[in-house]
């Protein structure tokens, strides 16, 4: 093992550091398009994203559908290839490793998905679902050893007593329990990084908090978590930091409380103003943006938000703002990509 592999974190203390990440998907042209030599167009899913997450930290990637948050996670997991940029995991750039070279690293980075009804194999008992990653990675030689690890993971995921769940099939479990099984199957490998893609959006309100608190406990125990969500309230409650994405870019990033209480980017401001508040008396005037997020094939010039921005100036059409700390930021870690912030 090289020194870089052993090193726990990158130079700035992060477990995962993403720099200038770009992921594009080609748009199918069809036979005629190819024959006519039409220019190949791309969906600019991720267009220069930088972020980092440390051990014991939860980062929330927040944004509307099509903003590139899921593609970002898939690229970091190397399920999709990046077109540019670096993905530093424990200080080592993994963006160009072959699948074979990646295999030992897969143990350390796991992902859970939105829909626990689809992510679990219906023919597998809980025991087999949670033990499968161990078999794949050749951990826990004997069946008894594996069982012990499975039981430990179930307890960690809050499925107690574990004996009650070991022999059940997914259809015998509630949505919340299924998501806990998915978390147990991810945690059984004792990963350092967990990507959670909308982990509660398919679940009933009454059980969501339980899953989120479980993730929070795992974070306290030292796990680095990147949670992808469209729900700002959830992000504000559970994440340490929030990164707001719009059309493939992070437009604002900072400590969760700062982003929610003192948003700097006009997009974040609008987004926060339209989140329905729980208290009926708390009815601040929502600032509703017109239209919908533009098509990520043709990204607007200059600031990508300018066509919908309520305060856009002439120069916003030409200047593509970088993510930096504006004078109005209260926290040194609070950054926004807006020349007017």
């Amino acid at each position, binding site marked *: 093992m090289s020194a870089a592999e052993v090193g726990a974190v990158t130079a700035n203390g992060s477990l995962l550091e993403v720099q200038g990440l770009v992921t594009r998907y080609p748009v199918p042209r069809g036979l005629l398009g190819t024959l006519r030599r039409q220019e190949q167009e791309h969906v600019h899913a991720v267009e220069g994203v930088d972020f980092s997450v440390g051990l014991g930290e939860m980062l929330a990637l927040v944004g509307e559908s099509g903003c590139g948050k899921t593609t970002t996670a898939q690229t970091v997991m190397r399920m999709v290839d990046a077109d540019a940029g670096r993905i530093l995991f424990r200080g080592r750039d993994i963006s160009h490793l072959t699948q074979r070279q990646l295999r030992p690293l897969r143990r350390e980075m796991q992902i859970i998905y939105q829909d626990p009804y689809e992510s679990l194999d219906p023919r597998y008992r809980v025991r087999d679902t949670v033990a499968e990653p161990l078999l794949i990675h050749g951990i826990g030689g004997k069946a008894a050893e594996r069982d012990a690890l499975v039981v430990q993971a179930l307890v960690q995921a809050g499925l107690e007593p574990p004996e009650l769940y070991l022999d059940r099939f997914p259809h015998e479990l509630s949505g*919340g329990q299924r998501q806990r099984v998915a978390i147990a199957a991810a945690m059984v490998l004792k990963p350092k990084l967990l990507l959670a893609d909308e982990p509660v959006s398919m679940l009933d309100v009454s059980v969501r*908090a339980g899953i989120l*608190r479980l993730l929070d406990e795992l974070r306290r125990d030292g796990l680095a978590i990147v949670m992808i969500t*469209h729900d700002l309230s959830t992000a*504000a409650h559970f994440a340490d930091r929030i990164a707001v994405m719009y059309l493939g870019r992070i437009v604002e990033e900072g400590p969760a409380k700062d982003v929610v209480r003192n948003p700097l980017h006009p997009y974040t401001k609008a987004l926060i103003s339209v989140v329905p508040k*729980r208290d009926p008396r708390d009815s601040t005037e929502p600032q509703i943006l017109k239209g919908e997020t533009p098509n990520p094939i043709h990204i607007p010039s200059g600031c990508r938000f300018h066509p919908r921005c309520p305060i856009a100036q002439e120069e916003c059409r030409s200047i593509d703002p970088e993510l930096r700390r504006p004078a109005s930021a209260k926290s040194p870690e609070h950054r926004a990509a807006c020349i007017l912030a």
Partner: protein
Amino acid sequence: MLSVEGLEVWFDVPGGELHAVQGVAFDLFPGERMGLVGESGCGKTTTILALMGLLPPSASVAGRVLLDGEDVLAKGEDSVSPHRWRDVAMVFQGAMNAFNPVKTVGSQIVEPMELHGVASGRAARNQAAELLEMVGISGSRADRYPHEFSGGMRQRAAIAMALACSPKVLLADEPTTALDVMVQAQILELLVRLTDDLGLAMILVTHDLPVVAQVCGRAAVMYAGKVAESGPIETLFHDPRHPYTRMLFQATPDLHGDDEVASIPGAPPRLDREVLGCPFHPRCDSAFSRCPVEEPRLREVGDNHTAACHLNDVPMQVAQ
């Protein structure tokens, strides 16, 4: 205007019956927006499908649904169909499924008008274009197909279709659940504006309490097929008289709230078996000896405020 009395719905299921709606009652007044909230399986969607007479054949229905004094359930399909879309219209959860993919949006808005003889031919087509304009879509797009619309536009078009016959009551089943926050805000603003402008009454079915808090004046909280509590939304939030209502608000994170978010342990009871006592008692944080044995009745606990909980019978000091 709309009055629901003792509504019961059973579904035939293998090996028995599932009692999905158990004696639900409420009144809806003109121009009022009422929320119907609860977890999945609590019977909120079944309730409004019963009002529309859209339940599958495996369902049997009892009780009365009075529309301006006339019982629309009295003669089954014969008594409901003249009112469906004409007086009571519905917007569904998945806007994609509300449209036939091979017909233009405009022609589908025209359909209920011609069916009920509200308008036909060119007049109907002109009205369809006007309805689209009213929900913020250019009337010239009436000859487009549903797949050419974005999710938010499709939901707008579905609202236009529901309004085709100028109904008195709009039933909206999770109208914004599949949408992004910004589009959700646009649709909710539209629903509020339309109900205000047209004097339309609306029942908003959702699991999302903050949406109800911002849109509706009143709400009924359903649990296990029954109304657990109902009242003005401000009262439900600030002075809930059923632990389920309080716990449901506590389980919902608020953007600016610092209070602990807590899930509700356990799961709702199965409705294909008889439930003893209060259906919520196994999950309740305040249950006492009476709760597992005696079912609490829904009764008045304040102005316009009803709750089904034994705690309301006990003076506060004794309960603690």
